């Protein structure tokens, strides 16, 4: 067990993956000498050489398309997309090629490609540097989509993603790169496809992933002080969603709050709300509530606090599903 930041845990996970399997190669912009703009690949090129850690020309379709060819050849490419908002030039290669080649070839060709995407806001960045594009990929058949929220998961899940024979979109909560935690080489063994119950609770089920997991835990702590018991679930896998623990939780609590930074319409929260309503209709005491980014582009930094879900908005939603107050209809808290 070592204490390290989430970013360092990714670095050490990548290092392990490179050491364990010489078919693993890293591709991306500025991942070599610079070690990536977030230093997640720091020193890996020095250690494994420029054939394993490859600085590519500046073109995302090129990176992903080259990775497809490498995968055809038996490699396990790990592509870094420098920031969330730069994934779109590679969208066609991801959606039409990476996602579909296994199906297209009826299993003959595997696409064990991992696409690492530092995502989300809260770092005061300029446009295109704070987006949450995960729903596009969760709606795309053939991909697996996961997100980590702590150093241990970062380390274990990146290794698992690379070892997975299916393509994996790996969303890294960039504002949590500096979050510290204990990391051991043998994780608790929870597969990357599984959600994790972080705190048990009886009143409300609160589902989060990536950067908002710490926020959700804060909300649970704050609510506990007010006597509300919240079960926080870290989704971890956004596609497929591991519904079993969420169903079990909602059958217990009767109330669901979901949070993400991405726009509300058509986000992961929509799928969760719809699917949990299908599965737990008769257990629900209130409609699932979504606390999300708005249906706007990610705003300039001066407005990001207004845009991002935070502790207060989560507690407001908890109050709402508890029937306590309803900011939506103007019924104010009596406090």
């Amino acid at each position, binding site marked *: 067990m070592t204490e390290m930041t989430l970013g360092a845990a990714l670095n050490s996970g990548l290092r392990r993956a490179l050491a364990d399997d010489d078919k693993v190669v890293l591709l991306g912009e500025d991942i070599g000498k610079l070690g990536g703009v977030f230093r997640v690949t720091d020193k890996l090129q020095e250690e494994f050489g420029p054939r394993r850690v490859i600085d590519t020309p500046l073109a995302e379709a*090129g990176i992903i398309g080259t990775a497809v060819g490498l995968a055809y050849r038996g490699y396990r490419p790990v592509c870094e997309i420098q920031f969330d908002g730069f994934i779109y030039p590679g969208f066609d*290669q991801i959606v039409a*090629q990476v996602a579909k080649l296994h199906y297209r*070839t009826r299993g003959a060709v*595997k696409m064990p490609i991992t696409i690492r995407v530092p995502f989300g806001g809260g770092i005061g960045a300029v446009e295109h540097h704070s987006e949450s594009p995960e729903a596009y990929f969760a709606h795309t*058949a053939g991909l697996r989509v996961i997100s980590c929220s702590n150093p241990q998961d970062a380390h274990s899940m990146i290794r698992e993603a690379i070892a*997975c024979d299916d393509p994996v979109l790996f969303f890294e909560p960039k504002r949590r790169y500096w979050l510290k935690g204990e990391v051991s080489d043998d994780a608790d063994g929870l597969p990357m496809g599984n959600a994790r119950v972080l705190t048990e609770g009886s009143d409300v089920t609160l589902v989060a992933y990536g950067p908002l997991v710490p926020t959700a835990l804060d909300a649970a702590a704050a609510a506990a002080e007010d006597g509300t018991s919240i079960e926080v679930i870290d989704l971890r896998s956004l596609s497929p969603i591991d519904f079993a623990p969420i169903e079990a939780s909602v059958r217990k609590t009767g109330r669901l709050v979901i949070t993400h930074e991405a726009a509300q319409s058509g986000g992961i929260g929509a799928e969760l709300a719809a699917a949990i309503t299908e599965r737990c209709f008769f257990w629900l005491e209130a409609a699932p509530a979504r606390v999300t980014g708005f249906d706007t582009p990610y705003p300039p930094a001066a407005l990001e606090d207004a845009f991002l879900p935070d502790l207060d908005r989560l507690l407001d939603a908890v109050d709402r599903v508890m029937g306590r107050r309803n900011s939506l209809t103007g019924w104010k808290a009596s406090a």
Partner: protein
Amino acid sequence: MSDVSTTHEHTRTSSPAGGSPEDLHPGQLEDIVQLICPDGARTASPGFDPWVADVTDEDLLGLYEDMIVVRRIDTEATALQRQGELALWAPLLGQEAAQIGSGRALRSDDFVFSSYREHGVAYTRGARFGDLLSFWRGTTASGWDPYSIGMATPAVIIGAQTLHATGYALGCKHDGVDSVAVAYFGDGATSQGDVNEAMVFAASFQAPVIFFCQNNQWAISEPVGLQAQRHISDRAPGFGIPSMRVDGNDVLAVLAATRIALDRARRGGGPTFIEAVTYRMGPHTTSDDPKRYRPTGELDEWAAKDPITRLGRLLEGRGVLTEDVATRVQQKADAVAYEMRAACVALERHPDPLTVFDQVYSGPHSGLERQKSQYAAYLASLDGAQS
């Protein structure tokens, strides 16, 4: 003062480095490599001849047979489409020399990344007929197992495969083998970002890849002049990739050019771009109606440059293609067509509905498993309701 003199026009048709064009390509028209003229005459080309010096008359006859066969495959597939046995077909008519000349230059450990029209290339790789047609029949999303014949599943998204070829070639290089990746694509494809990015990546990595562009003059209804203001082969050098422009209706010239490019790639010389100038004599696909856009006379003009006719003339002139041999070749083609038709109609038209869920992922997937079992239950309930 004219600005033309002050800027680097670079835009004239370039000639090879060193020597006058005539020295190198005596047989060429408009800076194009040609070894067999439309009238069947064999023209000398000091630069290219050595690369096909080992090609015997017997070999030429083999190429001839290949072309006859793939044209027959094409005709038969078009017929199958008209008869409702195929949903669609993209004819290669006219492009036989470009595909056979290049395809036959490859080794089995080379790897092809093609577009949807390379049936001739697939034939040279040994694709089975059922696998050639199941995509067009709508039975499966694609045909052959890529690893069994060294040819990727054709790409329908224009240009996407050029990047795959580049990545594969990079893998070959890193593996230390001298296999080569070959990307086939059309003239229209050269406008796509992917194709240009592939050139950037290939040049940067010095990847052993051949960019083989069949310039068949059309992208559906759009003439090549809409996509490119210069010869397509003029594009690659600016990326640092040497290029050749060959008569794509001349199977020998195509063979020679492909061998040159393969040799360079195998020896660590990196990528090469080949523009094979040819013509799509048929419609874009069986759904297309070229009458809406093809200028009158154009088809006739190109028919006079037919790739099969010219090799036939050469071989007749040499006494290799006798009437007997011609009959044998035709019989072979007919046999292939017969076999292909049989393979076509044997393809399952009504697969088990539940197979729609198969092979989306290589491992278990909770979401799909649920959808599959619910769908199975639904289908079973229909049976129940109908019983």
